[in-house]
């Protein structure tokens, strides 16, 4: 994507700093860029400054300093243009209690300026693609959280802006329809939209994004493709141990390079040459009743993320 020469059409954040009146520095000199057609992940722990950045992009907050540009439009100077050019799916559910599912998608497309026939056609395509036919004429008040989430996604993307911002789009969505949703996210990129994906879900992000940034304490601490982010861990393996209920974590073996405990799930990174010793250690822990099971696998983006931020991502148990 970096090879795209026409940078005027890119979404660019340059040196954005946001300091709230209470002195909290939510963003500190953030810079990133997203090319048309690119799916860009924005990862970071709670309070990292992701939502603050998004609110500045869509014109609801003004940066203390810095510039946000989209295709030659200055979104800081012209928040009305930001609303025209960006589609935004918030982390909270969209307010559709009174709407029927298809009606909500169509009306949102019309409010976004789409033509009536095109919006209806695209709404039907999205309902089909996301397997929402069963609920197309059901009112929002009776829909499950996952179905509401998918309807919200369809509302935002039925007539997408040049930049589509998706904040945790798969929350509450069942695994089968998550795959359908990710296919639609890819298609958004294929149709030329830049997609900014805000998520805690590192494992899903790894599969869905072209590039990603990790931000923490308002600053960008890493950026690149998922493969590049994992490059540091080449030659390493992840050894996961499910600790038995009521038992403490066993003492780590000397070859464990780093470890994180999420719930009962102990994740350690070991060298590839220590695989056999790692398996022996895990089997001994199980035999001693300290653990229930173990798994040895290639390191993932999540391991790189944990090393960068010191936090486990959502679904950090590998689920």
């Amino acid at each position, binding site marked *: 994507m970096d090879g795209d020469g026409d940078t005027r059409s890119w979404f660019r954040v340059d040196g954005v700093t946001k300091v709230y009146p209470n002195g909290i520095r939510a963003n500190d000199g953030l810079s990133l860029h997203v090319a048309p057609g690119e799916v860009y992940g924005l990862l970071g722990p709670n309070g990292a400054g992701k939502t603050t950045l998004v609110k500045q992009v869509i014109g*609801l907050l*003004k940066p203390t300093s810095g510039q946000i540009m989209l295709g030659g439009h200055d979104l800081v100077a012209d928040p009305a243009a930001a*609303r025209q050019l960006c589609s935004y799916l*918030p982390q909270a559910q969209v*307010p*559709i209690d009174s709407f029927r599912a298809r009606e909500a998608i169509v*009306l949102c497309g019309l*409010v976004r*300026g789409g033509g009536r026939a095109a919006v209806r056609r695209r709404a039907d395509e999205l309902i089909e693609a996301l397997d929402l036919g069963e609920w197309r004429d059901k009112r929002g008040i009776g829909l499950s959280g996952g179905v509401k989430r998918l309807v919200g996604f369809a509302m935002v993307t039925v007539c997408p802006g040049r930049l589509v911002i998706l904040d945790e789009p798969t929350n509450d969505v069942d695994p089968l329809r998550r795959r359908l949703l990710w296919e639609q996210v890819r298609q958004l990129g294929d149709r030329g939209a830049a997609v900014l994906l805000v998520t805690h879900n590192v494992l899903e992000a790894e599969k869905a994004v072209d590039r990603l940034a990790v931000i923490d304490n308002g600053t960008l601490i890493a950026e690149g493709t998922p493969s590049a982010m994992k490059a540091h861990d080449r030659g390493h393996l992840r050894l996961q141990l499910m600790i038995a209920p009521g038992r403490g974590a066993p003492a780590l073996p000397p070859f464990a390079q780093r470890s994180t405990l999420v719930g009962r799930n102990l994740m350690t990174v070991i060298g590839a040459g220590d695989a056999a010793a790692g398996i022996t250690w895990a089997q001994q822990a199980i035999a001693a009743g300290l653990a229930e099971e173990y798994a040895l696998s290639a390191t993932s983006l999540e391991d790189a993320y944990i090393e960068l931020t010191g936090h486990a991502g959502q679904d950090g148990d590998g689920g």
Partner: protein
Amino acid sequence: MAAWARSYWRMSAWDLAALRLYVPVLSAVLMLQGAGFVLGVGLLFSRMPAAAAVFLATGAPVMNLITAGLIFEPQLVAEQRIRGSYEFIQSLPVPRSAAALAWYSVALLTALPAVILTLLTGLARYDLHLAITPMIVPAVMLTCLTGVLIGLAVAHGVTAPMVANLISVTLIFVMTGFSPVAFPASQLPGWLEAANRWLPFGSMATIVRAALVPGGQAGAARAYLVVAAWAAGSALVLAWAQGRRG
């Protein structure tokens, strides 16, 4: 201009669809408010004086119009803020003025059945004969518009949902008990009567009453100016609140 008009129509359709489960309930609540007030106050008298009956019957519909604007939007926005959907609505690519006018249209549609029922209840209960003039149209529209704009200014200007709700409810109490809407201003203490010359609610009642009561036009021109000034001031506060970006 065509794009603005299209945004207005589509946002009106959005608001109507979003509130379709609630509009009949809101309308019924307003009917209960208006008809209940007209009939309830009458229980204080064995025979209500004609002048008092006129104030009551023409003031209660004004309460409907003000309530529709002052209560519903602050409560709706407060709920959006609590549920986290406020940013989604605010991110829609609709001109703020078109969105505000769309909401005004929905509020007017919600209030009008109650206004008519309340007025008819007063006329029937107290055997009144009013002379309705065409000025009722601008009077009702301006009164509702000003109520809606004050409500929108509170809804978007006060970011704490509970505080916004408290302010709107307090304003309803001020309208009911401390503003010459359903009784003459001369009944108030001098300082409160003077204050009400610059507050909107009494003037709203004055302009509506001027379009209904023969010979009731005294002070109407000034009242129009006061109400229009409150509409303009509220619109400015609303524009500031929606343009404010932390």
